[in-house]
């Protein structure tokens, strides 16, 4: 018996507005819409709808809307419709539930319980329109020994650094999980903005080597597409130990998504599953991690910073302390609300901790141990706005990774169906007819728009606090106050309650 699962959404068409142009039918890769010649009308099969809003956005007469279906099971606060349907799906198939994008569960969002300070009277705000307001920063190891040459001049012993025009980078999204056009949009925007995008673990397409100085390449457990030119082409190399959406497990790109081009980039045969093991099987300790860090440094002659990306988990501070001692230049921490192209639902929704708490713990621990300057910190895992960025920096981050926000800029409507490979917005798909819907010119421009706006907002908020350099905001937790937080939460975040003075 295959249990019928009622559709979650209902496609509502206003027949008075619909002029049967059939755009919706052409745009929907899930084949929701169809034309009934006998009736001379458009029909919709809501059961197939993933609620990506492509048809709604492109309907020239605005005749469409998607609503939550009012077909309901008997109300039950414990056994919600979602929970019941998941049981049915697994009883039907025997499969592990697979989801995409970030955790949709109502976990606390600490960003929304943190408020930012502003100057009044005694320490005047700064107007970013009139005064220089520095959001440029460098990522890398700060600590260095002062050494002099024979003539007594200071030698340059500073470790390699990444220069960013604003404290934001595009987080790792592999070619395979997202499309060629999405990658090109990210790469071009990173170049124009003076920031970086990240290849993820899928290798680097040969067309994108020209964006190398704005590219961070990833080395993950599957080591897909990792070879000398790949490492050399990049501005920095990221070792992926974990990902916020799926801590503790690897990746699995199904063979169907390994098209000719993806196969070429990952350097694996077409149509064969690409499996990234959960651990790097050559890394079972900090010492082993140090070995991978240094083998990469040796292979690239110590010219590039090495990042280590981990998921935010319970002992994240101790782990970060180990990474800071492994020789890594930058630590990226990915919180449990971070996105993914595919992850088992149970892992995505139940494993890991929020980035706000992880970041605060890590920064505090590294400071206490006197090794904060050994590394830069990048925070990711649902940084949704410029104010999240400002709060993250005040909690101790040097910069933030954004993934979901960047995809939204490209058109994503967070239907969380990336794992099905039918992205109507041309982002999380490899189907040529869908990929071409995303124009890289438009995509890059939208990303530039978004981050230019964010950068203005960051400057305004900094100015309001009387801070004119992003580096003076880093770890400046006195600029933050909490509301609706428990004593434990305040202690972990290292901030005072709103209304508490110094």
């Amino acid at each position, binding site marked *: 018996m295959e249990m019928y699962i009622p559709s979650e959404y209902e496609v509502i068409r206003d027949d008075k507005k619909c002029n049967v142009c059939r755009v919706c039918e052409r745009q929907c890769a899930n084949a929701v819409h169809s034309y009934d010649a006998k009736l001379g009308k458009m029909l919709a099969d809501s059961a197939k709808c993933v609620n990506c809003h492509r048809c709604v956005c492109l309907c020239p007469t605005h005749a469409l809307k998607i609503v939550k279906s009012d077909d309901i099971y008997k109300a039950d606060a414990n056994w919600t419709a979602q929970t019941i349907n*998941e049981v049915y*799906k*697994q009883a*039907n*198939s*025997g*499969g*592990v*539930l*697979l*989801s995409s994008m970030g955790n949709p569960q109502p976990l606390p969002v600490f960003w929304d319980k943190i408020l930012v300070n502003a100057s009044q009277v005694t320490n005047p705000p700064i107007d970013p329109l009139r005064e220089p307001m520095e959001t440029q920063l460098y990522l890398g190891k700060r600590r260095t020994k002062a050494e002099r040459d024979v003539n007594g001049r200071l030698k340059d012993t500073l470790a390699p650094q990444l220069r960013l025009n604003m404290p934001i980078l595009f987080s790792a999204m592999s070619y395979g999980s997202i499309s060629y056009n999405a990658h090109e949009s990210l790469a071009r925007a990173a170049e124009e903005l003076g920031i970086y995008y990240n290849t993820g673990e899928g290798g680097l397409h040969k067309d994108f080597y020209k964006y190398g100085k704005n590219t961070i390449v990833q*080395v993950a*457990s*599957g*080591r*897909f597409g*990792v*070879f*000398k030119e790949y*490492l050399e082409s990049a501005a920095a190399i990221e070792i992926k130990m974990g990902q916020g959406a799926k801590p503790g497990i690897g990746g*699995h790109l*199904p*063979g169907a998504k390994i098209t000719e081009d993806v*196969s070429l980039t990952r*350097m*694996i*045969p077409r149509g*064969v*599953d*690409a*499996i990234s*093991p959960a651990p790097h*099987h*050559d890394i079972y300790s900090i010492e082993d991690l140090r*070995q*991978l860090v*240094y*083998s990469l440094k*040796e*292979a*690239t*002659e110590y010219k590039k910073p090495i990042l280590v990306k981990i998921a935010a988990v319970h002992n994240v501070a101790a782990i970060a302390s180990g990474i800071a001692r492994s020789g890594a230049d930058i630590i990226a921490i990915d919180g449990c609300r971070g996105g993914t192209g595919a992850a*088992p*639902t149970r892992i995505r929704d139940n494993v890991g901790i929020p980035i706000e708490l992880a970041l605060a713990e890590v920064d505090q621990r590294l400071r206490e141990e006197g090794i904060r300057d050994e590394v830069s910190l990048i925070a990711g895992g649902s940084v949704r706005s410029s104010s999240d960025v400002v709060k993250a920096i005040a909690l101790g981050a040097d910069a933030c990774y954004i993934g979901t926000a960047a995809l939204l800029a490209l058109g994503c409507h967070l239907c969380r*169906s990336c*794992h*099905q490979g039918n992205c109507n917005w041309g982002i999380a798909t490899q189907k040529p007819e869908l990929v071409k819907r995303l124009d890289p010119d438009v995509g890059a421009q939208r990303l530039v728009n978004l981050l230019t706006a964010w950068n203005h907002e960051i400057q305004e908020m900094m100015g309001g606090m009387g801070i004119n350099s992003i580096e003076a905001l880093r770890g400046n937790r006195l600029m933050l106050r909490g509301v609706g937080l428990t004593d434990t939460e305040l202690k972990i975040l290292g901030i005072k309650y709103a209304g508490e003075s110094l």
Partner: protein
Amino acid sequence: MRIDAAEMDFQKLNERIRQSRVQEIKIAGCIGQRYIAAGLSGRDITIQGTPGNALGAYLSGGRILVDGNVQEATGDTMNGGEIIVKGSAGDATGYAMRGGEIFIYGDAGYRCGIHMKAYKENSPSIVIGGRAGSFLGEYQAGGTIVVLGKDSQSTIVGNFCGTGMHGGEMYLRCDDLKAKLPAQVKAEKLASLPQGKARSLVERWCELFGENKDKYFHASYYRLTPNSENPYKQMYTAN
């Protein structure tokens, strides 16, 4: 060029190798220096002594000959070239190799050849003269692994051989494969080593280490390949 590596720091040693324009390099008195020849190509390096971990990581070409044992992670993420080890190798040898060849005269440790993969003209190979530890060829996606059991053919591989294997092939020289194989792996017994890549690898191994080809050609082997029923396909249900 000859480099006396005794008491030399690994960074200094590797910098000297990188900066030297000479193709042939002899390293004497090697004592655990790591990352030798990482990412290099086109060199012919002979090492006396014992190199440290990650020898020839990301190696793109050329040849490394070690007159002794090697430690862990030899040829990690190697893309091309040849590493010849006259002794035994440690754990994680040939991890995620994409190309090139590793020939080991003696035994290899745990986790050898994990996630080896092949693509177009690149197909990596590891030949282990003795026995291999557990987890040999886990997640193997391509390439060839040969274990010859030259001294003893009983239990020439450890536990969890080929877990998650989804490409490539393994040849294990023994009469009775005692190892318990996972469901993803198919094993067939061969009366002798067939013509093809495995045979030419064994031939090369015999030439390198002065062993008798007949002994290794005419022996029974188990050939391990992924089970064509892909066990992953049915694993997920869209949510």
